C-alpha cells in the first residue's frame, strides 16, 4: 500500500504521462490545471512541500514542472481557513 507522498507522486506522474503526448508546454499546463481542479488543497500543499523538501524525488519532469506551476488555494473569508 502506498502512503502520503508516494501516492501523490504516483498520481501526479500518471496525470503527466496522460498528457505527455501533447508536448511539454501543453502537458505541463494541463497537468497543473488538472491538479488544481481535482486535488483538495491539503494534497496540493503536501506535494508542494514534498518538492521543496526533496527536490521532487520520483516525479517525472512534466509533473515536477506542473507542481511548480500550482497556484495557492483560494479561501472564502466567510469560512476561514
Amino acid at each position, binding site marked *: *500500500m*502506498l*502512503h*502520503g507522498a508516494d*501516492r501523490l507522486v*504516483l*498520481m501526479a506522474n*500518471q*496525470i503527466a*504521462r*496522460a498528457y*505527455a*503526448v*501533447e508536448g511539454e508546454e501543453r502537458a505541463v499546463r494541463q497537468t497543473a490545471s*488538472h491538479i488544481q*481542479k*481535482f*486535488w*483538495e*488543497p*491539503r*494534497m496540493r500543499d503536501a506535494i508542494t512541500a514534498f518538492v521543496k523538501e526533496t527536490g521532487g524525488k520520483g516525479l517525472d519532469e512534466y509533473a515536477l514542472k506542473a507542481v511548480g506551476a500550482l497556484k495557492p*488555494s*483560494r*479561501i*472564502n473569508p*466567510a*469560512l*476561514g*481557513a
Partner: protein
Amino acid sequence: MALIKEIDYGTPAAKSEKMVTLIIDDTEITVPEGTSIMRAAMEMGTTIPKLCATDMLDSFGSCRLCLVEIEGRNGTPASCTTPVAPGIKVKTQTQRLKDIRKGVMELYISDHPLDCLTCPANGDCELEDMAGAVGLRDVRYGYEGENHVFKKMDGVANDLYIGKDESNPYFTYDPAKCIVCNRCVRACEEVQGTFALTISGRGFDSRVSAGMNEDFLASECVSCGACVQACPTATLSEKALIEIGQPEHSHITTCAYCGVGCSFKAEMRGEEVVRMVPWKDGKANRGHSCVKGRFAYGYATHRDRIMKPMVRDKITDPWRETTWEEAIGRVASEFKRIQGQYGRRSVGGITSSRCTNEESFLVQKLIRAGFGTNNVDTCARVCHSPTGYGLKTTFGESAGTQDFDSVEDTDVVLIIGCNPTDGHPVFASRMKKRLREGAKLIVIDPRRTDMVRSPHIEADYHLPLQPGTNVAVVTALAHVIVTEGLVDEKFVNERCEVEEYKEWAAFVADPSHSPEATAEYTGLDPKEVRAAARLFATGGNGAIYYGLGVTEHSQGSTTVLAIANLAMATGNIGRPGVGVNPLRGQNNVQGACDMGSFPHELTAYRHVSDDTARALFEVEWGRPLDPEPGLRIPNMLDAAVEGTFKALYIEGEDILQSDPNTTHVSAGLAAMECVVVQDLFLNETANYAHVFLPGCTFLEKDGTFTNAERRVQRVTKVMAPKNGYADWEVTQLIAQALGLNWNYKHAGEILDEIARLTPTFTNISFKKLEEMGSVQWPCNDETPEGMPIMHIEEFTRGKGKFVMTEYVPTDERTGSRFPLILTTGRILSHYNVGAQTRRTANVEWHPEDRLEIHPHDAEVRGVNDGDWVRLDSRAGTTALRALITDRVATGVVYTTFHHPTTQANVITTDFSDWATNCPEYKVTAVQVSKSNGPTDYQDDYDEFSRKSRRIAEPVKEAAE
C-alpha cells in the same frame, strides 16, 4: 390510486407513416399501414375476443377466437394476423362468428380445470374473460375424454397429466391449466431473447416445456418473468400472487437496481406488495424486466433489516438501540466537535447511486452548506467517474448521447467492456432483438460473454484483448479508420475542431498504433482488428456501448476519450442508431453525478471554483461555500490514515465491500472518530461505524432516479417507511440538529430546488413527470420535452474535441510471482455487493462467487473444478472455489464480487484512473494455488463481523 390496467391492443403498433382507412362495424377508422384488424378495432374501442394474441408479441394466429368477416372475402380470417386494407368492411360480431367462437371455447374449457373460484388468476384470467365474452353457457364434451386436468381417470393414472413445476422460487408452472397458446414461448424468444421454452409434443399432447425435460430452475431460464406476464391463464403465476391474492391498486415506480431504470407497476393489497409488473408505457423498458426488479424485492422485509437507530462509543462495543433524537443529536454534536478540534475540512460525506436524486442532493448540500467543506463524493467514483470526465471533455456533457430506443436503428453494435445480458439485462434483450434482425456485432472483452454467442446471435468479431489494453485497441481501430481513409470527413469538418482533429489523425496514423504493432501486448489478431474497424466505419449506423470494463482501469478516462474520438471520426453522433452509450452500473449513477455529488462540482457539472455558479448556491442556501475541491473517497481514506480526516456520513453505500484494497479502506475507517452509516442493513462498512441510522427501500419513499439514458423517472412511496423516516428526512433531521433552516415537506420540494439551481433540470418537477411519465434531461425552456438524443446539430461544447490517447501500461504488472490477470464483473441475479439480492431467493442462482479459470491454467496448478483455491495479489489473499471454463483466455481469471465472504477486494490494489481516481478493479496481477478452504483472514473477518454486529439487549445495556 386504482389498479392500473394497460389496454392490450392484441398486436404491436405498426411503424408505417402511411395511413389506411377502413370500416369496422360500420365505423370508419384510420390507422398506420401494417396494423392488424384486431388492433384497429381496439383503437376504436371494440375488443375482439382473443387468446393467443397480445401486443407485446408478434401475432401468431393459433387460437381461432379472433375471427372476423370481411365483406367480399371468403371465410373467417383471424383479425390478429390479417392486416388492414383500404376501404375493407369488417364485421366483428355475426351469428357465424358467435357459433365458431363458442365452439372454440368449448374445446378449451373441456380440457381445463373448473376450479375458477380457488384459482390464483381468478379476476385476472383471459380464458375466464373469453368464456364470458363469447357467452359460453355449457360444455357439451364433458371431462370423460382425454384431458390434462386430472391426475387419475377412473382410478388409473392419466398419462397426459403433468404435475406443477415449482422449482423457480418466484413463479410456478401448472401444466394442467395450459391452453397451449404459445405466448410464453414467444415472450421468451421475442421479448427476452433467451429461447428457454419450447412446445414439446404434437397436437393434443403438446405442452410447454423449459429446455429438454428440465424444470424451470435447471433450464436456461433467467427468470425475467416475461412468460408469466404473457400467460393468459394461471398456468404461469407469481408465487406471491398465489399466496396473497389479486392486487387492488397499483403505483408506477422505478426499479432500484440497475441503470436501465425499468418502470414498474407496484401492484398492491393495502401496504403489501403483491407483485411488481413491468409497465408497458415505461420508455426505458417497454414492458420488460429482469429477475431483479421483477422479483427480488423481498429484502425490504428481510429480518436482517435494521429498523431502529443505534449508537456505540467504540467500534469494539456492541450496538445500543436508541431514539432518533439521540442518534441524530450524536451525529450533530460529534461532527461539530470534530470540526472544532481538527478543522473544517476534517469531515465529509458519501452518497450513493442507490439514493434518489433528492437524497444525493441533500447529502451534498449538508456537507457543502452545513459543514462548509466540499468533502463529498459518491460511489460513482468507483465506477463511472471517467465517463463524466471523458465525455465532458470531448462533447461537453457528462452523459450518454442516446436513448435506449436508439438501438432499433443501429446497424453495427460495438460493445466494449460490458456484459449487458448480466449487467443491463432488459437493455440487452432490446439489443438482442435488433441483432436478430440483422445488425452486426463487435465485442471487445477479455471474456467470451453471453453476447458473443447465444441463441440466434453470434458476434461478427470478438476481440478478446488482454485486460488493461483498451486504449491501445481503440486507438488501433482509429488507426485503421484514419489510414484506410474511412473517416467521415464531412462530419469532422462541420462538427469538430479541425486543427485538433488533424493533430489526432496524425497521432493515431503513426505505425506504432497499428493493430500489428500493438498485437504484442493486446494479444489480438491484427487481421481481426482491421476487419472490425472496417465494419464499424462502413457498416451504417454504428453505436458504441461500454461499461465498467472501460472505466475501471488506470487509463479509464483515456479509453472514454478514445471511444468519443472513434464515434466522431466515423460520424456516429447526433442521430438515432449511433452514439456513445455508457451503460451505468447502479440505478442512479447518472443522477448521483448530476446532483453535484463529486467533490469538485456543483449540480450540472459546474466546478466549485466557478464564482458565478457558487454565488447562485450561496444565495439559495444562505451559506458561504468553499471555492476549493474536496477530497475524493480514496483521498478521504488517505487523509484519515494521516490523521486529518475524522468523521464521515455515508448514505446507502458500503465502501468497505465495494471499494478496492479492503485493508486500505478499513485502515482509513478505523482511524476516524465518527463514522455514520445510513443503510438498510448492518453492512460491512457498519462494522467500523459509531452511529447507525436505519434507511428505507425505494418502496417506502418518494423521489426520482435518472437512468443511463438521462431519463428522470419517479420513485413512488407505496408503503410507510418501516424505519420511521424516508432517507431524505433523516438527512434533513441532521441538518436541523446543526441549526440549518431546512423545511422540506416532501421530496417534490427538493426537486424544485434542484430545478432552480440546475440549468439542465429547469423544467423538471413531479408535476412534469406525472404528465410525461419520464423525461430525458436537458429539460428547460429550449427543450421543454427533454432530449432523447444529444449533440444533434452541434455539440454541447460547440465543436467536438479530439484528444490524443497514448497507451500507458498500468503499473500493475504480471511477473513470476503474480503471473495471472484477475478481472472482475457481475452476474444477472445479483446486484453490486449483493446486500439486497443476497437477501432474496436470487441466491438460488448464485450462492457464491467463483473464480473462473481456463482449463490450461487450472491443469498446471492441479486445480479441479469446484476446488478451493487461494488467490494472492500484491494487496492481499483470499480464497474461493474454482470454476473451470474456456470463457476466459489463458492468463486471465475472473470473479464476481457479490458475496462479502469472498473478499474479492482484499485482492484488488489501489491503483486508479489517472484523471478521476476511479479504481482499477479490472486488472490485478494474481497467483492462484490450491487451498483447503477460506483463508485465516476470511475466518477472522467473519468473526470480527459477527462481533461488531452484536446488538446489546436493551435491559442489560441500561444497567451498564
